[in-house]
């Protein structure tokens, strides 16, 4: 009897150690691809498609929405304008047609492909036009409880260029760099603003040119970003040498939409002194000098 009880106790204790994980109920939606970049003349059109996937075990009720965006944060996050009409004129969001009803159901673990056409009206303003096509989960409020529900919406960004008289200009509005460094890495940051009327990819670079032959010519690539009109993007890069050395003239550049270089004004310089190497070197030199002087003073060489 005692053995049976001990065995039972051990069994129950072991069972309690087995972790029990309740499978979390996840609800959500997936979209693909995440962006399109079109160039469409006024009076013409182009097509694309989005794929909406339901990875849940319940059917997913969705609705397709299109919203314009006109500004983007420095990190590249668009700010959307909502689905209400913006005025008497039509915008990119109005130029979409879909080849399927905007509302539908995606069965569990299935996907649905929805094609769209963008028809640019005759006489549309040349330049950049921006919107996102969203798939939003339709969620009904539960009844009988004071509660807040959350729904998901995912989008594909649509960047459209209507060719014509456009400007692809830009300016570097901010550039920060270290003036004196003891050791690497040395970080450079830049902000580039699109002052034109259409989006473009801007590549930023920092060139370090040695002054008085002190150092080696080096380029720091800050990367490439797409900048939409009236928006800025941040660029960050670093000189990754552990103990850089030299006296440099800094030339920060970015490209505009025509590939022309935009540069910063002023003379920027950088002094790099690797103290971790120089100080021990100086100490060693001083020690050597002291030893030589000491020997000269106190040691007599007899012929």
């Amino acid at each position, binding site marked *: 009897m005692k053995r049976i009880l001990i065995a039972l106790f051990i069994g129950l204790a072991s069972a309690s150690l087995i972790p029990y994980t309740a499978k979390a109920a996840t609800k959500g939606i*997936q979209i693909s691809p995440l962006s399109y970049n079109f160039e469409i003349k006024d009076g013409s059109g182009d097509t694309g498609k989005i794929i909406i996937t339901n990875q849940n075990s319940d059917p997913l009720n969705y609705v397709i929405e299109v919203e314009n965006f006109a500004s983007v944060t420095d990190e*590249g*996050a668009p700010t*959307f304008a909502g689905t209400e009409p913006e005025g008497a004129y039509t915008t990119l969001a109005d130029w979409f047609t879909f080849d399927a009803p905007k509302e539908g159901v995606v069965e569990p673990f299935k996907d649905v492909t929805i094609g769209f056409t963008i028809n640019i009206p005759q006489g549309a303003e040349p330049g950049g036009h921006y919107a996102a096509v969203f798939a939003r989960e339709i969620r009904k409020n539960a009844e009988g409880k004071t509660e807040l*529900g959350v729904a998901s919406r*995912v989008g594909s960004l649509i960047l459209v260029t209507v060719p014509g008289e456009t400007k692809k200009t830009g300016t570097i509005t901010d550039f920060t760099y270290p003036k004196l460094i003891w050791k690497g890495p040395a970080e450079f940051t830049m902000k580039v603003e699109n002052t034109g009327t259409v989006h473009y990819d801007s590549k930023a670079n920092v060139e370090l040119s040695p002054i008085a032959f002190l150092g080696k010519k080096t380029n720091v690539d800050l990367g490439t970003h797409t900048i939409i009109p009236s928006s800025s993007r941040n660029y960050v890069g670093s000189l990754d040498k552990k103990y850089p050395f030299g006296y440099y003239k800094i030339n920060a550049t970015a490209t505009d939409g025509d590939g022309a270089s935009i540069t910063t004004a002023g003379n920027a310089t950088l002094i790099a002194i690797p103290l971790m190497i120089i100080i021990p070197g100086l100490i060693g030199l001083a020690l050597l000098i002291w030893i030589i002087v000491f020997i000269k003073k106190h040691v007599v060489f007899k012929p």
Partner: protein
Amino acid sequence: MKKVLFTSLSALFVLWGFALTNDANKNPSFFTSKAQAATSGNVTLSGTVLPYLNLTFATGQTGDFGNITPGTPKCTSNPSGTVVNVTTNASNGYTLALYDAESGAVSDMTHTDTTTKIADMNSGTIAAPVLWVTGTHLGLGVTMYSGLASKEALWGTGASACDVAGNKYAAVPETATTGHTVTGFRITTDTSSWGWRVDVPNTQKTGIYSGVVTFNAVGVIS
């Protein structure tokens, strides 16, 4: 000896003659072995890896405030609040925005009369959330209390869904406004955790209120 030599030579001559008069395709079967017939061909495989973004809720897709007493702020009963998972192969990361599509200073928390609503939090925006002060702040507010990849400093120092001392709250905007951005490629799922808080004035109509807030995710522009 002579006989053996003569026989061998004769056999060789016969064999040689045979080989000369027969084409290779008619070799005697005892000199050939059947090899298994071999065929080859090319199969072209192709496919496209598309960028994708998946948004799911790990917990808290429904937040229950229970009974709300005017003047006593409440958080939703789920201690984790709403936990949002985003998985994407976008090379530049993603942004997460919130909105309720309600114009004016009202939230989507609507009475069963379908007209009366609980107000938006009376101060604090997604761009500049504020610490909740009981007696001063009313309406529905949201906070982000945790982020796996990162947490924006503007959301405060709170560490749980109802950490009122540390969380900073904002009204839910009408249109999708970015509350959280993760830049750069992420191999694994990213998680952000959100808390909800509500208080109402004495004049709030009694009854049951419910509403929906939408989380909106897109890839960061490259």
